[in-house]
């Protein structure tokens, strides 16, 4: 399991390749990459704040929860903080399992939990100013379905 919380950009392709090499024989790998959207020009940049220390602990706890639930060969979570522009990768999860069903389910589980249980806060910067992104009830619902 690897958890990386960083301000530096990362290369999702290179990360996926390295992850695949480290779990040779797993059978199924699912990767998800989240990008900064521009929302039709409404978002010029995004600033992501986090809680150093708690962030790493919370993500590791979520990854361990997933590992306890599905037969995962490995889990990777990368999440950036700081200043990002549309098109940049914010975060990535990768899961490896013997079969695809478990790899897909674990990746979705990780995403749903990271949304509302990892201490990140997004601020959107647009032509009209800056605004904190509000948490959505649907995020809680998505997490509760697990």
């Amino acid at each position, binding site marked *: 399991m690897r958890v990386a919380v960083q301000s530096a950009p990362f290369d999702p392709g290179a990360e996926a390749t390295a992850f695949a090499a480290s779990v040779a024989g797993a059978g199924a790998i699912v990767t998800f990459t989240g990008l900064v959207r521009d929302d039709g020009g409404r978002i010029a940049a995004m600033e992501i704040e986090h809680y150093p220390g708690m962030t790493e602990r*919370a993500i590791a706890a979520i990854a361990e929860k997933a590992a306890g639930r599905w037969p995962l060969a490995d889990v990777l979570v990368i999440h950036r903080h700081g200043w990002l522009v549309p098109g940049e990768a*914010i975060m990535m999860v990768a899961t490896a399992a013997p079969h695809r069903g478990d790899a897909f389910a674990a990746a979705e589980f990780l995403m749903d939990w990271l949304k509302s249980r990892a*201490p990140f806060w997004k601020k959107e910067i647009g032509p009209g100013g800056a605004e904190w992104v509000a*948490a959505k009830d649907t995020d809680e619902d998505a997490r509760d379905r697990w």
Partner: protein
Amino acid sequence: MIEVLYFAWVRERIGLPREKVETAAPTVAALVEELMAREERYALAFADLAALRVALDQELASFDAPLAGVREVAFFPPMTGG
């Protein structure tokens, strides 16, 4: 002495990211009351507790949780990661 941290708009409203607080508050809610009584900016930041979350020593907790033995309290809005 407790280290109190603020994030996102809570940090912006209060105007600082962290501070040391001398308190004998038995619970998070009691600490919030003490902070709110200090100054208007604290009262504004804590006006709607339903819009806030709290972590004790980096674990999510509730506002009625006890503070005994806690070294670090953090207040922040609901998280928006992913």
